[in-house]
């Protein structure tokens, strides 16, 4: 099985998920593991959690020029996940002109080959959620 592209991707028997940290003192949810709370500075209040797998687009940009070897255009979105955390990622499977503020999206895991590499890595993308008929 492919290696995760970034360390926030973890796996268990149910499949891949994104790992986060919640501060019990101030309730802030961070993407990834951490030892102290950047918001309230508490050090003994942090607990690991699985990040939500859905959220809404806060802002985005359409990247037309990137580093050499990277396919463009693509949509870079900042998504507010339903647990209150904020995650950067690529928004796939949608026409850039159709993106709107607060567009509902879900997190999907895919195998992709990064620019300049030959082997695939496990990564995540945002895709539009189907508002109805998702089940």
């Amino acid at each position, binding site marked *: 099985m492919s290696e995760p592209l970034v360390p926030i991707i973890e796996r268990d028997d149910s499949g891949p998920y994104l790992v986060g940290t919640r501060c019990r003192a101030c309730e802030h949810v961070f993407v990834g593991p951490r030892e102290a709370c950047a918001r309230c500075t508490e050090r003994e209040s942090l607990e690991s959690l699985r990040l939500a797998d859905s959220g809404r687009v806060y802002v985005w940009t359409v*990247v037309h020029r990137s580093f050499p070897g990277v396919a463009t255009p693509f949509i870079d979105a900042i998504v507010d996940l339903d647990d209150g955390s904020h995650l950067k990622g690529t928004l796939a499977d949608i026409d850039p002109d159709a993106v709107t503020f607060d567009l509902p999206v879900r997190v999907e895991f895919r195998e992709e080959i990064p*620019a300049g590499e030959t082997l695939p890595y496990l990564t995540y993308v945002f895709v539009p959620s189907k508002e109805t008929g998702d089940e």
Partner: protein
Amino acid sequence: MSDVYIVGTDMIRFGRLPERTVPSLAAESALLALDDAGLGIRDVEALYCGNLGQAGGMVAQRILAEIGQTGIPATNVANACATGATAFHNAWMSVKAGAYDTVLAVGVEQMGKGLLGGGRSGPSPEGLIGSNTMPAMFAQIGVEHMRKHGTTVEQFAKVSVKNHHHATLNPKSMYRRETPLEEVLGAEMIAWPNTKLMCSVNVDGSAAAVLMSESKVRSLGLMDRAVRIRASEMSSTPFAERQLAMPDFSAATRVAAERAYERAGVGPEDLDLVELHDCFATAELVHYENLGLCADGEAGKLIDSGDTALGGRIPVNVSGGLLSKGHPLGATGIANIYEISTHLRGEAGDRQVAGARLGLTHVVGGGPGMGTSCAIHILERV
């Protein structure tokens, strides 16, 4: 506690100078600044050098190897795009603390063409997990302003029209060409809504300043052209809700601005001109509000009004800014101090802001997942 003054400052014309070395670029502006003050390297008690590309390369010591190895303490500073201003801030602190009377601050950068960002090892997530390019990051900051306040792409583009116009009046600018609104909007799209003409120019350059204690300025009789440093303030990213996903340059700027206005005992309404960090057209409008040049949500109206153009109420980036003068990372924070000082001395030629008495410089640095730094200086005509 007595004030610290700038008694000499200069910069080289920004451009593409691949045949030069980093120390030689820096040495040139260092000597120009010393000449401007009527001093020599033997008068200098300490050197602070800002450079990012060769941060491990002892650039300060190599400058002294070019202009005179007098054995003074030499400190190398790196702080992303706030590097030059951070070197200047350290020089200011050393004089303010009474450790030295005469200190040289130099900022220098030699850059290739192409996009900034990235810099991590291992397989690149670029494209698969958004983008780590600077244009994408600052595009989203503009889109956030659209989201909150309804700012339009045309309003962002007007920043480029204005700053490119200003640059036609500045002989030290990389580009000196008018760019009408249609040309700015029609240029190659880099990261929506920023087109190529809404992105700062990667150039080579250097800038330098000689800082001096009040007693020394008086004893040498240099007060006539001296510029008083009313505030030299820095900040790092205070906690901001989305900063780990998208660096929050606004939060850091607001902290530093509040400290700077308090230290100087002035408000934004007292300023005659501003050089702020227009690394992208989207950034300039956001910083109008962060620096208090207008109320939150009013930046689009402010650019529409023409008040931030030369001749307006509060001219911003009369030098041409990073968008047209160019952005050699380590030099930028001292080049904008040179620009304000030149206006306060009444020596800015065709682009002179009439009667300028008080000016502000602002730079920010940072990147995705790194946090930000901000440095603000308030300078006053003596």
